[in-house]
């Protein structure tokens, strides 16, 4: 074989690999079409829609009370915030002012949901990188929160606790004790997370400087939540457009400037501390009042447009309702955080290795039903 022929035979060639739709690190049914040059990723093309349930079309036939129950099937790890977004929008349309008690309960439950979502993310991220222990740690602590949810509203995952005008039931008698017990427990356990993962040299090598997203790209792609804040863009809806009781609590907005996988990781860990701060400020003085305002059995919004955004565990969830005065909306749009965050995956993963793609996907914390709706 001549040198020329040898060169031709070993010449590198672009090729395609399907990642998913059934792949453990996609956390659901997401298919990525990878263009590879050796082990280097040159392009990532997400193919979505495997669990598209046309929630927006279903909403056009449903009453406003029914819509609430569809929303926790989108981002099931932020179910409480999703419900809250729709309820706040409907309350804005009806001009209902919920009691302080409801506002505080909603805020506490939102932060508990955020904590449980981040705990699951942390456990699963460790497992994506090959550390089984973290998965068990994360689920051990998450169990306490799901127990609180179960006692409060009967469900552990899709809670349906919010309704337009308040919450479905009052909090149980031992709610405050249980939550305080959890906070005491988790304040001791969260440093363990750092010991196990954050300061691990293998973990650091696999995340630092990997999958960098610049601030300009984060804004342009609309990458919100901890992923966007890790790129130096302060986009916390709880700060910029406070809702429920967020205007009366004191908390820091976690912003990092590096924009790499490790910054996204740190942002979520720090958010857990902040969530605990918020809960501690509220849990001892839940005001007295109604846990529900009376609403009509058939809710009709006036002819209007409403946009309500909330900060879920993944970023900015927006609910756009266009009402024409009937008992069901004319058009509902959910601006889901995962949909926009996934859009930036190609920018983050391009030029890296396949193994890094798994890290990046973990750190943008995808929930597929949230993307597909």
């Amino acid at each position, binding site marked *: 074989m001549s040198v020329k022929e040898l060169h031709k035979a070993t010449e590198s060639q672009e090729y395609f690999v399907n990642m998913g739709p059934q792949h453990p690190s996609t956390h659901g049914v997401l298919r990525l079409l990878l263009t590879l040059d050796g082990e280097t990723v040159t392009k990532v093309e997400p193919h*979505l*829609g495997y669990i*598209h349930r*046309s929630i*927006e*079309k279903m909403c056009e*036939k449903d009453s406003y009370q029914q819509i609430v129950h569809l929303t926790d099937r989108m981002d099931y790890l932020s179910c409480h915030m999703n419900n809250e977004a729709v309820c706040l929008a409907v309350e804005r349309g009806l001009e209902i002012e919920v009691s302080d008690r409801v506002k505080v309960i909603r805020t506490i439950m939102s932060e508990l949901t955020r904590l449980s979502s981040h705990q699951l993310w942390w456990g699963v991220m460790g497992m994506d990188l090959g550390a089984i222990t973290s998965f068990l740690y994360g689920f051990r602590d998450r169990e306490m929160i799901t127990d609180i949810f179960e006692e409060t509203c009967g469900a552990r995952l899709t809670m349906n606790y919010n309704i337009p005008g308040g919450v479905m039931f009052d909090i149980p008698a031992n709610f405050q004790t249980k939550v305080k017990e959890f906070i005491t427990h988790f304040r001791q356990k969260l440093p363990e997370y750092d010991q196990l993962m954050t300061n691990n040299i293998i973990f650091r090598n696999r995340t630092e400087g990997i999958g960098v997203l610049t601030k300009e*790209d984060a*804004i*342009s*792609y*609309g990458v919100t939540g901890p992923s966007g804040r890790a790129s130096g*863009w302060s*986009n916390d809806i709880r700060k*910029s*457009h406070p809702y429920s009781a967020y205007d009366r609590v004191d908390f820091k907005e976690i912003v990092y400037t590096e924009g790499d996988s490790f910054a996204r990781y740190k942002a979520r860990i720090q958010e857990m501390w902040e969530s605990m701060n918020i809960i501690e400020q509220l849990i001892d003085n839940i005001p007295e009042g109604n846990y529900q305002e009376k609403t009509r059995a058939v809710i009709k919004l*006036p002819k*209007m*447009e*409403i*946009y309500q*955004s909330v900060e879920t565990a993944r970023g*900015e969830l*927006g609910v*756009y309702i*266009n009402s024409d005065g009937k008992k069901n909306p*004319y*058009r509902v*749009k959910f*601006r889901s955080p995962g*949909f*926009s965050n*996934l*859009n*930036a995956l190609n920018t983050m993963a391009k030029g890296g290795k396949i193994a890094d793609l798994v890290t990046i996907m973990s750190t943008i914390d995808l929930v597929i039903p949230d993307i*597909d*709706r």
Partner: protein
Amino acid sequence: MERVELQNKINSFGVEVTFAESEVPTQFLTAEVSSENAHALISELKNNSDSSFDYMFCQTGIDFPEHIEVLYHLRNTQNNSEIVIKARIEDRENPAIDSVFDLYKTADFHEREIFDLFGVKFNNHPDLRRILLDDDWEGYPLRKDYVDEVNIVEL
């Protein structure tokens, strides 16, 4: 920026715009434009240093009996001022509008979704394909006249 101030600013851009007026004050300042002028207006809003709406937080479509609307929700990340642009597409048979992908990269997925569910064609979009539904799906489900005897159960 105050609404009136922003309104005057937009009028000075030289793009034909009408501002929605209603008895109840709307949540956002709403500017209505024709589909031909939408890109020019949004481009001005983004690049003009006085407005600089650098973040498009929502883009969606609505189907009306006579026309289709594409909505752009824009926010300025510095001072959190917000505006809604409604682009009116008269032609419901072959709706088309210029893509804003060159201004906001998030338009990539959002416009593909609107194309998928409303059938609006975005000119100059780099990769306009269906995103949620199958490539061989017939019709545009979020249109009001969409008929699907199998999957939609009338109650």
